[in-house]
């Protein structure tokens, strides 16, 4: 699979749905340590609703249209911090890919940059504040480099996933500045950020989806 086409997207959303259903309890537990335990529930709901909505899109819907549908339904279904930020991410990605007919490395880089900028605009967090942004920004940067150097999609995503894993690991040393976790202050040190974990999982699933359809 060199590129993700509009017709592939329902499959990708289905993969996301599966992952966030499998990771439900894990994310509840993670958010429970320094938060309110709802992350697993809301992410599961968000992607289940998105996957269902996307599967009902008309034949011929554009990539932008599909991403927008996903974002809008997520915002409705899961208006928690992460639900809304993720929804914002998809809606911004949709805008950035208004004219895209497929998602190659360049477009995927645009997707993640728009996603990251959207989250930053909406949440007003800084890199280093121990949020989702701390994986989104490195992911986008890694993909931009890959795009500039003409890397193919599966390799670009694989590299970005490594970067994201590393970035996620880095959140352990940070102290939460936003959301419910901020109240836990120093106790958040040593724990990986729950929202960043979601960011990592979204990317990893995208990579696995592309890899599984790419002959080795």
């Amino acid at each position, binding site marked *: 699979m060199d590129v993700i086409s509009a017709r592939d997207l329902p499959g990708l959303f289905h993969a996301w749905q599966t992952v966030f259903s499998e990771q439900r309890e894990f994310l*509840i537990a993670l958010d*429970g340590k320094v938060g*309110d*335990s*709802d992350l697993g*529930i*809301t992410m599961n709901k968000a992607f289940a609703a998105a996957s269902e909505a996307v599967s009902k899109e008309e034949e011929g819907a554009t990539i932008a249209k599909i991403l927008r549908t996903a974002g809008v339904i997520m*915002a*409705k279904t899961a*208006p*928690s*911090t992460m*639900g*809304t*930020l993720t929804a*914002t991410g998809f809606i911004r990605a949709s805008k950035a890919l208004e004219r895209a007919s497929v998602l190659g490395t360049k477009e995927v880089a645009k997707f993640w940059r728009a996603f990251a900028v959207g989250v930053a605009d*909406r*949440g007003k967090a800084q890199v280093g504040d121990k949020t989702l942004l701390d994986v989104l920004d490195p992911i986008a940067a890694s993909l931009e480099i890959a795009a500039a150097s003409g890397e193919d999609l599966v390799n670009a995503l694989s590299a970005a996933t490594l970067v994201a894993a590393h970035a996620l690991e880095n959140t352990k040393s940070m102290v939460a500045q*936003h*959301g*419910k976790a*901020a*109240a*836990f202050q120093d*106790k958040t040190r040593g724990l990986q950020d729950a929202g960043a974990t979601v960011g990592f999982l979204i990317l990893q699933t995208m990579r696995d989806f592309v890899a599984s359809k790419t002959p080795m």
Partner: protein
Amino acid sequence: MKKFLNDPEDFVDEMLDGIYRAHPQLTYVAEDRRCMVTAKPRTGKVGLATGGGSGHLPLFLGYVGEGMLDGAAVGGVFQSPSAEQMYEVTKHIDQGAGVVYIYGNYTGDIINFDMAAELADLDGIKVTQVVGNDDIASSIVGEEHKRRGVAGIFFVFKAAGAAAAEGLSLDEVTRIADKARLRTRTIGVALSSCVVPEIGHATFSIGPDEMEIGMGIHGEPGISRKKLAPADSVIDEMMERVFAEQSFSDRDEVAVLVNGLGGTPKEELYILFRRVSQLLGVRGVQAKHVWIGEFATAMEMAGASISILHLDEELDRLIGAPANTPFFSHYKA
């Protein structure tokens, strides 16, 4: 989990169904029960909207009614309602004079209210926002913008609600809401956890003889966990922190809210108030308006919070004004 429930997923919607059946003065828009508005809108009045997670009754929706709020967007348990729901409420309650959002300082709510305000702006509806951050346990002085909003938001609703009922302008109502916010301090103490229906077990654990001063209404950690002390010393410790932030002169007047978090009997709240009243008395401060009961809960959590609003003449008038909502009535003295 010891709860009266059907399917936990239906918790909020069945609760709302019960509320609409019980209180015909409330209704909803956009064919969505979670977009609650008053059934008796008043033309020309500044609209007041709130919103937030469920599980805190009478917060938030319980204050929709005469002399208080005009609408509330209702979220899942401990979860923000959506921007769209807030926007629908906003459109409906705007009577041409603009709308003030009054809600608690939680990321999820802020993000969604911001989105709703942007949507309303596109429609030409003027929206201002006042974000309650009364919980002094949740951040230090100087970092007040990081503080959570808890029970003290009741005073902001009450003052802003009365101001809007008096026919004041959007700017005036916003100024008053903000003044009430800035002059309110709250501190809480929790004795037990709560259970979110869809999760089904205690949000946090706390020893059988422990208390946590400063715990948030979703179980966010407080300042100190220690052995449960006699009621008077618990209040002494809590009020010391309040007095450190509010400087009172002899004969100053305050409004006091002793709020039960859900599982604590009213009897005990009065024992707590007794001590608060003694401590205010020592300082020559008069408790001009007093409310004791459940105003902002965390499901069945045992515990209480004390909110103190430092009155001035204007706030005294507005806090004392009549109000009548399904969950809160106040006759003018």
